[in-house]
């Protein structure tokens, strides 16, 4: 190991003369930072196996976490689907997760308002729950014109799901159906 850069003996000019690297190309000119180089993939606290969130090929991803922050996402060589490879979108997953412009607060826009305003998550869910039941009641259809049973509401529609987990789609369909909401769709039909 070469002496500390700060010391006189660490002066590359002397290291040039001392080492075989007379022209100062390699061993003699490395800085301490270089000699102690680390990789995010090796310093991570844990590695979690995940799946790419973009298209439906289902490429395997390895998520590297340090201090409870995602520091790197790359292809999982173990995956027989993708063999560790990712497309540009998959390769950008880390940016998707840590995007500076990502929203982390609930925003509310009142009727006619020109701006969003922040509101509390808890309050927001309550507001939605109230409106959900109101819309459900307002547009409730118990029977059709022939008196046949419909027991549904046309007041609520939903779009989306192809980017979600199966478990999430399951709960959504269950809740909507039990509420009588039928206008449920997702990207499969876009």
């Amino acid at each position: 190991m070469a002496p500390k850069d700060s010391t006189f003996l660490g002066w590359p000019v002397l290291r040039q003369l001392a080492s075989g690297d007379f022209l100062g190309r390699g061993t003699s000119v490395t800085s301490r930072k270089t000699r102690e180089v680390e990789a995010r993939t090796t310093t991570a606290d844990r590695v979690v196996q995940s799946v790419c969130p973009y298209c439906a090929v289902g490429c395997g991803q390895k998520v590297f976490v340090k201090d409870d922050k995602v520091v790197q996402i790359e292809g999982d060589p173990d995956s027989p689907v993708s063999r560790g490879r990712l497309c540009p979108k998959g390769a950008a997953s880390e940016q998707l997760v840590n995007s500076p412009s990502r929203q982390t607060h609930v925003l509310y826009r009142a009727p006619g308002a020109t701006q969003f305003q922040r509101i509390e998550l808890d309050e927001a869910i309550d507001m939605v729950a109230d409106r959900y039941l109101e819309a459900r009641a307002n547009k409730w259809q118990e029977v059709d014109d022939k008196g046949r049973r419909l027991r549904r509401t046309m007041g609520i529609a939903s779009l989306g799901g192809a980017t979600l987990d199966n478990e999430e789609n399951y709960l959504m369909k269950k809740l909507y159906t039990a509420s009588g909401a039928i206008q449920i769709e997702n990207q499969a039909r876009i």
Partner: protein
Amino acid sequence: MGYLSRQLSGQTEPATDAGWQEAPRRQGFFTDTSICIGCKACEVACKEWNGIPLDGLAITGNSYDNTGDLGASTWRHVAFVEQSQDRIEAARESGRALVDLGMPSMGAPAPAPEPSIASPAGYGTLPAPIEGHGPALTDMLSEKANVEAGGTGDYGLTVDGVPIVGPVPEFRWLMSSDVCKHCTHAGCLDVCPTGSLFRSEFGTVVVQDDICNGCGYCVGACPFGVIERRTDSSVSVTADSHVPNVGVAQKCTLCYDRLSHDQTPACAQTCPTTSIKFGAHDDMVATARDRVTQLHEQGFTEARLYGANEHDGVGGTGSVFLLLDEPEVYGLPPDPVVPTAKLPEMFRAAGVAGLGLLGAVAISFVGSRS
């Protein structure tokens, strides 16, 4: 000077020259452009791993290339070239001409290898024999003779007597992922006055951004126009809007940090079609030669290697490419020579000039003793 010139050109083991005792095998890339699909995953994976800032949000109108060229904030660049038939024929012809020139064959030309999973065939590759089925090269030749003799295609390779394989395509779209060449004799490295650029134990050329003082000399010394000094016009991609290493020379490090921990470089790891291959340099060169041989055997004489010759102007490149047309079509120099190769000559000329100056002054003072 003798010692110096030996260090400045010709075949050599760069890591050893740089003082690395028992260095690992030299590492490098082989980029097979014939199977590149231009997805640009390499560009993104590289930027993501190395935290490289944004460099521009304008469309260029140059096919699908909105990156432009390699630079301080672009360490992988995918080139897109659209060509119609006449250009393809020209490329095929120029490639054939190279064969006729008796290009260095680096020992016995490798026999055409059976296509293997390791190296997926790509652009225009003809069907290879599958367990006796399917058209083999010989099948097609006999087929041709057969058809010309008024016979029918035994291998069903013909439409109305015209074989359906291997024509010069009417149009083609070349894609090629360019990267730092990690030259055996690296101009950028040798002209660096601070020792910021250094030769790693893997034989790669790396910038130490904590050392570089941004003199910019390396920029002019690179025969491939790879390295560049980062300006403050780069745009941050992080929340703190910090742009790293402004005023410092930047280029591909061949993921020195990953290599140091036995990991594949980000670009090679992500490449969906293994167009970018990574490994020991001589293995890469061998693979490259097999591949070009395979394509030639199949009649695609436009295929050629770039940088696989350790006798060339930069002593061979650490990143070897398989191209399908002349280098300049991809924005690569056709005969790169590292400027430092001529250093002894330059110093000699400067020395003479300097002595001349001394002499001239001396003479001007002759007989002017007051």
